[in-house]
């Protein structure tokens, strides 16, 4: 087999199986960093040997076999404790069985996701850790998406992996008593990857936007791993609704278009349909949660493509439910806007003013919402101030311009 053909096979195995291979090795050794090193060596060996020896019938089993040899070498070299030698022996036996039978190797990615979002792991490390271990994204790219230096991101990831190994964080799926809390950490870490990507949507070719797609990939994996968990489907639906509008968010490539003004012909109906489907299945479990509610709100916006209108009354009801589950600033601001859009701007403003001021000092959506509500109440001067404040709090040039325009439209001259 030619070298380029081998490269193509290796690439495809890496793309489709990287997370599963890491999860399998790490779940048995308890050491993510060692699993990554060993698998990296195995891929290098594949590139060297497959062109002459041919691609093995089961590339994954071959890679696991080589990787566990590397793990054993490393363990001997570092004289790690006896217990890990036993677990490595276990990997060896399992790898041999996998090579000999037609069984696919066990999928341990769910355990890996729960480890990445373990409460003992620093919050800022959870999302990067997930992206690196489950999708195999390199640290430099993750660093650029999170706007930190590659060195700082590298250190953050190393610290987290060391903690997993040394503190003995177990690779296990939590039991029902702790399920909801632990699942929330996983969902939040995935959603953080999505929003980090989404906020920088304008640069469609940038690593930022790729991150939003990566988050959806992990979201799909999660649904596949826990098909009966409604919140996993809720999260995936939420991300798909938002993603369906990526082409409509800017007109003429640089002009910000607010959601209710977007050209629905530019929405991806395929993504909307996929989202609707997940939300429907989620609802059948009759276990409401934050992500399902957020997705349901987006579903009503999506419905404008068909009905031509937005049912703000329904959105308000959903926000009332949402603030029960997750009284975040985001949901409180959304609820205030829903009040205003259902014809109750004064109630909306009152709801906004209930939010503690110190929590919204630098929260751009609050100031934009405030400007909008004051404008509806014809308090033009205050509206102008609020929009100006909002404009100064965004890093998206198109949104900044849009907010300054709204500030201007409330100035005394007009």
């Amino acid at each position, binding site marked *: 087999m030619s070298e380029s053909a081998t490269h193509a096979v290796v690439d495809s195995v890496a793309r489709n199986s990287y997370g599963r291979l890491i999860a399998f090795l790490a779940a048995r050794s308890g050491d993510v960093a060692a699993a990554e090193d060993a698998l990296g060596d195995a891929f290098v060996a594949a590139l060297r040997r497959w062109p002459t020896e041919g691609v093995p019938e089961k590339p994954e089993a071959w890679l696991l076999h080589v990787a566990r040899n590397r793990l054993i070498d490393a363990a001997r070299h570092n004289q790690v*404790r006896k217990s890990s030698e036993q677990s490595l022996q276990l990997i060896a036996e399992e790898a041999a069985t996998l090579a000999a039978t037609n069984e696919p190797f066990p999928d341990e990615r769910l355990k890996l996701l729960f480890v990445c979002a*373990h409460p*003992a792991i620093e919050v800022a490390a959870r999302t990067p850790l997930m992206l690196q271990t489950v999708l195999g994204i390199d640290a430099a790219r993750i660093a650029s998406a999170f706007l930190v230096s590659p060195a700082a991101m590298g250190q953050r990831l190393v610290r987290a992996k060391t903690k997993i190994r*040394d*503190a*003995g*964080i*177990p690779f*296990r799926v*939590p039991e029902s008593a702790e399920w909801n809390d632990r699942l929330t950490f996983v969902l939040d870490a995935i959603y953080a990857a999505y929003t980090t990507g989404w906020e920088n949507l304008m640069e469609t070719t940038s690593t930022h936007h790729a991150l939003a797609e990566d988050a959806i990939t992990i979201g799909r994996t999660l649904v596949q791993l826990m098909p009966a968990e409604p919140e996993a489907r809720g999260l995936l639906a939420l991300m798909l609704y938002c993603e369906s509008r990526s082409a409509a968010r800017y007109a003429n490539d640089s002009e910000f278009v607010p959601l209710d003004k977007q050209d629905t012909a530019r929405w991806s109906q395929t993504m909307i349909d996929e989202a609707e489907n997940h939300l429907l299945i989620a609802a059948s479990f009759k276990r409401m949660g934050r992500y399902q509610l957020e997705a349901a709100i987006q579903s009503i916006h999506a419905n404008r493509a068909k009905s031509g209108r937005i049912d703000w009354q329904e959105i308000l009801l959903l926000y009332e439910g949402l603030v029960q589950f997750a009284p975040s600033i985001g949901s409180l601001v959304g609820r205030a806007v829903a009040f205003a859009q259902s014809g109750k701007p004064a109630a909306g403003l009152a709801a906004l003013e209930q939010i503690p001021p110190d929590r919204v000092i630098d929260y751009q959506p609050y100031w934009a919402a405030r400007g909008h509500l004051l404008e509806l109440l014809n308090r033009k001067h205050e509206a102008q101030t609020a929009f100006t404040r909002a404009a100064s709090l965004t890093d998206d040039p198109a949104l900044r311009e849009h907010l300054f325009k709204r500030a201007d439209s409330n100035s005394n001259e007009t």
Partner: protein
Amino acid sequence: MKYALLVHQPKEYFDRRQDQTAITAGRAYGEALQAAGVFVGGAGLQSPKTATTVSVRDGKRQVHDGPYAETKEFLAGFGIIDVPNLDAALEWAARHPAAADSAVEVRPLLGSHFVVGNKVS
């Protein structure tokens, strides 16, 4: 794996520890650890006022009155438990009576370098 549960309490809590309820809760917790077969060792500590700190510098012993660091919280007790993993250790830490109003720090022991009782961990 062996973990240390380190109980950190504010100064004023040390006066309260002779309360009958505190004593009962502490004893029950210790018994639960023993019953589960995870208890390796541990004890509550007397007030930081009773502490004396020693260091040796240039061959000279320096002794000073008081705990290692004057902070708002002091080490009030420690336990060593032997459980399969961090989740199990956190579970026990959360059950510690002091977890309800103070904090329990969970730290893995330095594996083979630490001797507990007469067996090397």
